[in-house]
């Protein structure tokens, strides 16, 4: 028994002194390996009488468990120490700068068109498009603007060269020709918006030779001025995100609508700055009206059966008002500083359910 006691003390002592996992392994092999000291004692048990063998075997097993336990806990301890050392070594400067902003920006015109689509889409409108180089017929004649009409003089039209048949194509002066193309190609009911490029021969601080408009057209059997008002009031309030935005309709004139109305929204100009909302002043933002019976006739739609309304507005204008962009010309200058300041992150997709703007 003394020898066992001695062996135990020796092994446990060397386990406690071990400085590495390798040493521990040597100790384990020396004690518990095939030729190990404990294993050797186990082998000697066979020579003992049955009763003595059971007793000695149990004692030896206890010793074996004890040594295994000691090696295991010493090994865990060494591993922990090793990890702690490695972690200390792996320390880096976490204040080093990293690149977060690798995204580009969406142009305010695109974003505004997406907003318009979200709002009018909710009201049952679909998006229609059309060519920029137009026939005189679609841009003027079908819209009740005959060649001698004063309105034609007021729209500074870009012309392309005369063709062999004497006709001259124009760069569309408004998105309204898409009304005509739509009415000629599909039967009512019609409910479309038409965002797109338009061109007028005008260039100064508040005019650009190219700009964007959105057109709206509703044709059915019952829509009237009351619906026009309802539709546009809802739009203005949703777009500018002001629930109590005052909206005013004034009589006006467009060759392609009758009755016609211009639409103002409330604003305040106090202190020199323009603020959209209830403020005692008015700001014109769009033109509208009931589609002129002649326009319907020009599109082979019977004005005694069908009627509806149309409206149009400048996309840059409403974007400038909503987002406080001061200068129209800057939209087309592709100045990186401007694009990054006024642009929108790509994940910011407007929707009426998720939110129009943030």
């Amino acid at each position, binding site marked *: 028994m003394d020898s066992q006691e001695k062996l135990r003390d020796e092994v446990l002592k060397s386990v406690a002194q071990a400085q590495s996992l390798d040493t521990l392994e040597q100790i384990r092999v020396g004690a518990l390996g095939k030729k190990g000291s404990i294993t050797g004692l186990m082998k000697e048990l066979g020579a003992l009488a049955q009763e003595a063998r059971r007793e000695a075997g149990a004692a030896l097993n206890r010793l074996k468990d004890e040594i295994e336990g000691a090696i295991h806990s010493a090994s865990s301890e060494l591993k922990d120490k090793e990890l702690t050392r490695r972690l200390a070594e792996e320390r880096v400067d976490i204040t080093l700068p990293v690149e977060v902003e690798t995204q*580009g920006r969406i*142009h305010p015109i695109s974003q505004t068109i997406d907003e318009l689509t979200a709002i009018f889409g909710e009201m049952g409108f679909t998006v229609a498009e059309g060519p*920029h180089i137009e026939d005189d017929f679609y841009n003027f004649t079908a819209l009740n603007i005959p060649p001698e009409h004063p309105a034609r003089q007021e729209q500074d039209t*870009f012309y392309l060269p005369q063709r062999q048949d004497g006709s001259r194509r124009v760069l569309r002066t408004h998105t309204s020709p898409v009304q005509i193309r739509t009415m000629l190609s599909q039967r009512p009911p019609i409910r479309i918006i038409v965002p797109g490029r338009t061109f007028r021969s005008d260039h100064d601080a508040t005019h650009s*030779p*190219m700009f964007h408009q959105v057109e709206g057209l509703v044709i059915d059997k019952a829509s*009237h001025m009351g619906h026009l008002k309802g539709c546009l009031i809802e739009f203005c309030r949703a777009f500018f995100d002001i629930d109590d935005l005052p909206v005013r309709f004034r009589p*006006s004139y467009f060759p392609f609508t009758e*009755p016609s109305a211009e639409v103002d929204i409330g604003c305040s100009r106090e202190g020199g700055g323009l603020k959209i909302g209830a403020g005692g002043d008015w700001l014109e933002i769009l033109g509208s009206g009931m589609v002129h019976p002649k326009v319907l006739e020009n599109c082979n739609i019977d004005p005694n059966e069908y009627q509806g309304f149309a409206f149009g507005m400048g996309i840059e204008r409403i974007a400038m008002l909503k987002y406080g962009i001061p200068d129209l010309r800057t939209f087309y200058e*592709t100045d990186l500083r401007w694009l990054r300041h006024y642009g929108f992150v790509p994940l910011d997709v407007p929707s009426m359910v998720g939110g129009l703007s943030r």
Partner: protein
Amino acid sequence: MKTTLAWLRTHLDTTATLDELVAALVMLGLEVDGIEDRSKALKPFTAAKVISAVQHPNADKLRVCIVETGLGQVQVVCGAPNARAGMVGVFAPVGSVIPRNGMELREGTIRGEASRGMLCSAYEMGISEDHEGIIELPLDTPVGASFAQVAGLDDPVLDIKITPNRGDCLGVRGIARDLAAAGFGKLRPIDETPVPGTFASPIHIHLAGPDAKACPLFVGRTIRNVKNGPSPRWLQERLLAIGLRPISALVDITNFMTFDVNRPFHAFDAGKVAGDIVVRGARPNETVEALNGKTYTLDPEMTVVADDKGVQSLGGVIGSASSGCDETTTTVFLEAALFDPIRTAATGRKLNVQSDARYRFERGLDPEFVTTGMEIATRLVLELCGGEASEVTASGAVPDWKRTYRFRPERTQTLGGVEVSADDSRVILESLGCGVSWGEQSGFAVLPASWRGDIIGEADLVEEVLRIRGYGQIPAIPMERETALPKIALSPAQRRVGFVRRALAARGLDEAVTYSFMPQAQAELFGGGAADLRVDNPISADLDAMRPSILPNLIVAAQRNADRGFADLGLFEVGPQYANDTPEGQALMATGLRAGRTGPKRWDDPGRATDVYMAKADAMAALAAAGAPIENLQASADPPAWYHPGRAGSLRLGPKVMAYFGEIHPAILTKLDAKGPMAGFEIFLDEVPLPRTKAGRARPLLKLSAFQPVERDFAFVVDRDLAAAKLLNAARQADKKLVTGVRLFDVYQGTGLPEGKKSLAINVTLQPEAATLTEVEIEGFSKRLVAAVEKATGGTLRA
């Protein structure tokens, strides 16, 4: 169209305030653009009495005056000949700003005499061209009284925007008529009774074309023994208030008639008219020296008023200098006519003459008011210039303007959205001068007023009723949708444009929007510049060609940004380019450009210069966003001429080009004054096939293999100019079922390889479906792959 409040009140008997009238006008569709209060600028100036005026000791033409201003006596030095003791003048104190020149008046010494203020002329006040002497106010004017008030200049000027259809409101009376109809007072009567003529007009009128429409009616009258001096103050003030220069009584009367009752006149000096007056088409190359001092060459499409000597005026546009009235005129021949709106507009446009007459004739004038207008004008001439009037001589007739339209009172509700009773509608229409009777087909028969040529149907009548009732009375009704949930607003083709846009932005490119036109020279560099796409009337020579590509705009923009210190950038635009002038010639493009380096030098990323592969990656990412099957795309080295011939190509799906990509040709960059390298791409979005939706939305069933995939690497030595795609394709085809991925991970040329060779190393992923691959199977596959690649590429497995 301008008027003053007081002028408006000469036609409108109203108790409404300025604010009320302005609000009413706006809601009638007569938008008030501005209200100018001239009294503001005149505020500092007051009536002052000259106590004494003595000769300046050192200047012959100056006088030293002592002036009582009401706030004390002040000495001023004055050069006006009419400055004298006892008179009442207009005093400008030190510190006031003279309206004419905007100069602040300072205290000064003039030739040794102190001057602390000024006595002003009408010229200096900005109210007249008369600078002969200082203003003399009535002697009973209280000293210290506001000059603006005393002179009646505290009358605000309204600037009213008249829409093109409302020609009838181009006279103050027309505006008053609308206000009266809307219940803002009563229209005052105007004396229209004929002035009896005492002799027959010696000048007769002959209408001779060019056709009957050119001048349907011409009314004339001779008035002799007139004295044509300056017009009276009330008339001058009205003209000045709306920005017209008073000239002489006769000319001022014609201008006044134009703006007061919207009836243009022309006044000929009868002494300068030779023979009778003929209205005819101009003779080819006939010329006229107009009142504005310019000489115009005419053509037969233009209507002229001529005498025996030649053209005396361009009908409805402008008069001639030779027969105009001046202070020597003693006999005047007044013309009131109707000229064809279309021809008048065309003449004015061709000759580039803007005139108040043209503006009105173009928009159509009241055909019933020609003779009436003549009586009103005659009365004014007799009153202001004396003389005696001839009988009226007229040629032609009032054209038939009468027409009736059915008006169904329920249309105010069904079209206008507001219920207005039949009686109320009738009252409104009658108040606007329409004749209303009960028609046969359940509705009114409405005869629009003679001055409302713009009303041409029931919709116009509905608008009239709504306008007077007030658009504010129309209840707003929410739009009802046909379906409980909205339809999809965007077509699949439209929707994917948004995906492409946002995918490119997410890759770090900023979205630009640039003009659809560009300089012709740039268009030519990018395959454009065709004659049918040149703008005839460009805004500037820089914007005269419809763009054949968006790239030049982006290249120029990138260089502009580089010049500002932002050389490393990525831009894109989703927009049109134009191949011809038909709708089909317009293509929707997603075009992008990268310039400089991937970014500034960073501690963790040295970055790299823009190259063809970045453009290719952008293009493929955008095509993927558009839904193109990018694994089937084939790159071919056949780029258009504006790309680097060896570092660019096309991406095709079968034979169809989906995109171009690559480095921009250095010579092109030089021509655009841009510094490279720049690499770009152009995606033909319309060409990308749309997904087939017939099969429904369900995805194919996902089959997952239970067995481990295996990866193997191979390297091949091939000819240096071998297209890598060929090798990759051969590897993929080696066993279509087993190979699920082939990735090129190394391209090497140089030491250790024979001249003219390169090494391409690939990693191949094998995915068994039925059982785990055995070493023997893998070995067998490897042999097949090597054989296939070697056969396809002529290369050999690298030892």
